[in-house]
């Protein structure tokens, strides 16, 4: 699942705004394919953001988050921080990406 993420982080007045886009189908498990078979749920459950070894933000997602999810959050930080964003889905796939705060 490498390369599934794009992350940007920018500091202003001591507040870092992180914006992330993740490529993921986010299947609800309620849809059917052309043959009427239910498409199994496949969705990201958790996204964590860490700076150093400190978790600064955690997102818990259900199937109600849109396909190819967008996430933005803010934390008190500074330029040059390395923010690591990691996600895990209900099938056990995962990916992570580091971004330097500009």
């Amino acid at each position, binding site marked *: 699942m490498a390369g599934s993420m794009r992350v940007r982080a920018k500091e202003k007045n001591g*507040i870092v705004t992180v914006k992330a886009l993740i490529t993921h189908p986010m299947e*609800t498990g*309620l*849809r*059917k394919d052309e043959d009427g078979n239910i498409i199994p749920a496949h969705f990201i*459950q*958790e996204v*964590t953001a860490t*700076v150093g070894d*400190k*978790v*600064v*933000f*955690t*997102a*818990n*997602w*259900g*199937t*109600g*988050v*849109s*396909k190819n*999810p*967008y*996430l*933005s*959050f*803010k*934390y*008190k*930080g500074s330029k040059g921080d390395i923010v690591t964003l990691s996600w*895990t889905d209900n099938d056990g796939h995962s990916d992570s990406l580091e971004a330097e705060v500009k």
Partner: protein
Amino acid sequence: MDRRTFLTAGLGLGTLCVAGSVQAAWPKEAFEAQESNALIDMLASSKPAPSDAITITAPDIAENGAVVPISVSTTLGDVTRISIVVEQNPLPLTSTYDLTADSVPYVSTRVKMLKTSNVVALVEAGGKSYSGVREVKVTIGGCGG
């Protein structure tokens, strides 16, 4: 004091015991609940008080229910969690966000909406629950099927 306090304490302990397993904190029951009041009861530490200090930014009318941008921010202090609930969805809880002492109480994402619905932002701040509501009209539903 009672049952809820006890449960929360137990939950905290449970989380400690399985620290390291990332899925542990994922509130499965709340995500599987089909009724928004029931899941709000599961997530809230107290009966949510309606609050003007919660701002929900969303379109008044969403043309495409598959992708509805929602942002939640609040001026409440000591915020530990923000949850976004779409009342009329088959599974109303879209997402919850765990904040830390380093967090600024703001989150923005995009959610699916089956039809016109109230969007509820449930905020845990200083050990109490608060809620904000905003209606979003949907022209084309986005849950597929």
